[in-house]
């Protein structure tokens, strides 16, 4: 996984609650067997009309926000389907950090696994940050210092130490877990001794 370094960008804003993963990447693009190339389908129904023409009014279709690396959104972002295609599409489009009052659980996990930073800040702060988007001013997100700043505004954020470390170092969770194989071995030994019914038997 890529290491997360500090990020500077004019943020884009989609000021809506409950943005679901069907919205982030519609189902017709889930037939792929690869992780790559999904950015062009991000928010497909918002970006393109029924004839596949770009919709002029959507923020990510307009300069400078088409190059935004930071997205500001409403609460419960990423709810719905577990599709990891959602963070893949966001990252492929260039979004590396999303700031919202809250995120859905599965989307949160999926994003962190791919190095997409999700920050939880209150709605009133996000409203403040949204002004920078309108003014086309850059925000900087520093995961090292755990703050977001712009001009003379500097806001601290909370993030679990463990997740911060994983992102900064670009750790691979599977690699880390495989190092603990002996723990898994002894769990299995003990567990299947006591609970042989958990083994899969088919007739």
């Amino acid at each position, binding site marked *: 996984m890529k290491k997360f370094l500090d990020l500077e960008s004019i943020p884009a804003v989609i000021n809506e609650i409950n943005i679901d993963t069907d919205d982030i990447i519609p189902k017709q693009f889930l*037939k792929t067997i690869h992780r790559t190339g999904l950015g062009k389908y991000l928010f497909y129904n918002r970006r393109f009309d029924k004839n596949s023409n770009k919709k002029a009014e959507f923020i990510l279709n307009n300069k400078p926000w088409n190059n935004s690396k930071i997205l500001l959104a409403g609460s419960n972002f990423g709810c719905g389907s577990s599709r*990891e295609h959602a963070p893949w599409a966001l990252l492929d489009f260039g979004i590396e950090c999303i700031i919202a009052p809250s995120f859905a659980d599965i989307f949160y996990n999926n994003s962190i696994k791919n190095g997409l930073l999700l920050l939880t800040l209150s709605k009133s702060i996000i409203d403040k940050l949204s002004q920078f988007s309108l003014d086309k001013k850059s925000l900087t997100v520093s995961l090292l210092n755990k703050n977001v700043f712009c001009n003379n505004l500097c806001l601290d954020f909370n993030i679990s130490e463990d997740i911060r470390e994983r992102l900064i170092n670009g750790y691979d969770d599977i690699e880390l877990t495989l190092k603990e194989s002996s723990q898994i071995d002894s769990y299995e030994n003990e567990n299947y001794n006591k609970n042989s*019914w958990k083994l*899969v*038997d088919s007739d």
Partner: protein
Amino acid sequence: MEHPKTLFDKVWEDHLVGKLSSGQNIIYIDRHLVHEVTSPQAFEGLRNKNRKVRRPNLTLGVADHNVPTTSRDLGINSIKDKIARIQVETLEKNLKDYSIDYIPLTSLNQGIVHIIGPELGFTLPGTTVVCGDSHTSTHGAFGALAFGIGTSEVEHVLATQTLLQDKPKNMKIEINGEIGKNITSKDIILKIISQIGTSAGTGHVIEFTGSTVKKMSMEERMTICNMSIEAGAKAGMVSPDLKTFQYLKDKKYSPKNEKWDTAIDKWTKLYSDKNANFDKKFDLNVSNLKPMVTWGTSPEDGICIDEAVPDPLSLRDKEKQKAVKKSLDYMGLSPGIKMLEVPIQKVFIGSCTNGRIEDLRVASSVVKGKKVAKNLQAIVVPGSGMVKKMAEDEGLQEIFIDAGFEWRAPGCSMCLGMNPDQLKDGERCASTSNRNFEGRQGRGGRTHLVSPATAAASAIAGSFVDVSEGW
């Protein structure tokens, strides 16, 4: 005395393998289901890194999302969409390469992953069950800790048979009261979500309890657990009882002989201790519950079928006002219109929420001897080959076909419209599925979530009707 524990606490503790040096919990996974859409990249990841599958026989694969529901005789060649076919072929190849059991498209056991898991006894009480699909919460009806995961986690399970997890919190939803005629557990869960909202469960595992839940069949319990995710929860659970054991006895993968006896011994201890602590609670009395329907584009937009859609101007919260207005525009509904006055063009009975035999029984009893309204397309998609066969053996297929319903082959179908079963722009559908998001069933399509009884009656009436009155 030991600290009182919830059902979830017990299953969680039983699966703690240990910790990473960072302190993260390693949780053992007993059962893993894979399907064609969220697994290819996981196998690709294994190959790229030369990793093995730790325990191939704890994973079971089936194709369900992408498959056509018209003819199945040609197996994989029934899939006309080339990209979809490649995805299913990839699943077959991946499972073969890694020696994982696969249920082919032509098998009687094929079906929606959350329907076949329990049907085959792959899902068991007190186990951890995961799948790259958010509705994995369904399996919690058996007292399993079951939750949806992403593709990276699918790879993690394949490679290590574990996941890294923070412990979720406990939430209890207690349901009491006797439900009326043609009111189903779908109405109950829609009611709950309309009251607590789509993020009330975030970070929590919900245990459903109360006299109503005790009386429910396994199918009904699966319907409420299935939609726990629509309340934002990590998982939904019901404490297993005799009904659970009866359901699982002699199923294909269920433990047999002495193993069955030790299992029962274990399973009877799976309940929340008296005075166990829940971080959140919600109570509902369902005695006067009416059939529910969603009017908007979020599962929390549920109202009683005889109510009117809300008027955004009557709401205080500006953000909510905006969301309601956007939903109503998309749904083509004017504020204040009564749901009973809204005509529909399509009816979909199926999905992992309501594609089980009991759902089809209820729906068929409503349509028996009647005819689907003119110009309305109504389809029934059984959740699995076994459900389909059972329904055919009971004569339900004929009832549906005589009434003018289409009788299809099993799969996810119009629940998400990845296959050709989709809504056209502007079409309005009474659907027994679980999500009414914009474009979910087809771009511009308008989805109203309802119970199988309501969907069936509405197909006959051509508009939403109150199935609890006079049906």
